[in-house]
């Protein structure tokens, strides 16, 4: 069987403007906090979890449901809208970071 692409590891990575052999990587040198997806990941996780707690737990436990369409129905759907908007914002944010990083590397 031919090698899978996973086995075709690129052994170099740009580091501080120079090319460093990945074989020499140490634990402390590995960082992902400057990658294009890191900050968007943190932000969108918060945008999913925090509204999720507020918009579901409050209506379930602290709001008298009453009759008709209840608060939980509205807030539950609102949570879905917030999540979907967060997905769009995430993609915009990551693409912007990737393009900026690419421009920085080529400069």
């Amino acid at each position, binding site marked *: 069987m031919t090698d899978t692409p996973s086995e075709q590891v690129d052994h170099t990575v740009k580091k501080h403007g120079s090319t460093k052999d990945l074989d020499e990587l*140490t634990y402390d040198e590995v960082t992902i906090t400057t990658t294009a997806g890191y900050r968007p990941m943190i932000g969108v996780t918060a945008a999913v979890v925090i509204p999720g707690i507020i918009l579901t737990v409050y209506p379930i436990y602290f709001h008298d449901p009453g009759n008709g369409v209840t608060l939980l129905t509205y807030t539950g759907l609102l949570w879905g809208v917030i*999540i979907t908007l967060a997905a769009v914002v*995430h993609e915009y944010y990551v693409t912007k970071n990737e393009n900026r990083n690419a421009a920085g590397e080529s400069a």
Partner: protein
Amino acid sequence: MSVTESVMFDFLPLQSGVTPEVADSITAVGVVIAYFALMVGIGILYAKRAHASTADFWIAGGSVSLRVQVFAFFAAVVSGGTFFGIGGMAYGFGLGAMAVFLSAILGGLVFMMIFVAAPMRRAGVYTVPDYLKLRYDSANVRIVAALLFAVFSWAYLIPQLTAAGITVDFVLPNIGYSAGVFISTLVFALYVSVGGMWAVTWTDFIQGIIVIFLALVPVPFVIWDLGVGGSISTAIANNPSFGGTTAPGLFLIGLAVTWVLAPLGLPYFGQRILSSESDRVARRSIMWLSVVYLIVFGLMGVFVPAGAMAIEPNLADADYFYYAVLVEYAGPVVQGFGAAALFAAVMSTTDALLIALSASLSHDIPETLGMDLDEQKETWLGAFIIWVGAFTAAWIALSPPAIIGLMITLVAGGAASGLFPAMAIGTWWKRANAQGAIAAMLIGTLTYGGLLVSDVFATANAEVLVSVPIGIASLVVGSYLTDRPSSQELRNFQKFHRKQSTKQTTSADD
């Protein structure tokens, strides 16, 4: 009946009411047969290409474009469970439960997008267990993950085949549910084993479009007849709790946690990510499908069950809500297309599950055990496993253990407990190592299974509220108690997070 089941059925007073029946079976059957023939034809069309290499069979060469992937991914996400389940949740438990269920699925999709889609696609592997092997530089991680993925894939097949049986029962009541399960299984296994991921991708693409269209078809009928507010108020008049929910709070929170975390551990989602032509396509396809999913199921999940509740508040099964509306408003041809839509929803997930199950058992495990299968042997073994997996699941589906929405949630809870920590946290936390990942997978899964079997909680879905934190704690503690990741693990970890948005075709020729 277990405590969990009794709680489920205490607030779902169905099972003894009305079953809708199709008006003109012959026309509807014709539509369904034509649809089956189209799917099998696509399988045959891609037979040669699919069996050309293992990359083609498992991930369609990693070359699926954004336009195709959005609809194919949408179709995979819209299983029979969610097509029936979202509206069924509204009919059985009220609109509040439906809203939480729908939004939690969206949350899970977005988590999959932000945590694993791009890093996993950059790995350039054929299966998710293979990705975990690279991440943790461990064959043991791969084999544990492959076994879990195989179990979850197989268990998730059962509610899909149940949905297929219900659909055949609707179109062909004389044939009945059991024969329906086996006929559907035969068709699914045939085109997946012949056409591999290529057939799965193109059938899913078509099925995605069909599902979008047909999920929305009943909405204007209901609104035209009853009005926007009128449909909901009539439903509430027939069932006062329809506007909110009758489900316990703990059930809803467990449901939300399960579906926010489960997509990261459901095998067929990962397989679809790996088939994307680049990491950016993997991310964007999930973004677009989230938008489409919200619109389609936001409308369908509110108005179709409202229409069903207004028409018939005593359906024998909550999962019949869609048929009840079709029978009321549409003729036999549309009813046949409606049945085809449900088949599309079921098929598109079932085929992806069969591929994931087959990939785990015929690619990951033999390779880890050092069995030197050539590409042809591996794809034929894969095809054999597809048939065995499909028919053993069909056998269980003859006596399904619960309604579909609950069955898929039970399996999803296992995936969330066992695989979320190693997949999502391990992708972003460099200190996570193989020992931690294995501990998280085994302890998370066993804790969930133990809680489920022992009926510790009086409310369904609550198990994940304990098993997921235990799984996360196992990853953290297991990693800190053992050595730091090896240099190979660090290399792969770094590699997965590097920008790489150009086309990344994956094939045996690479």
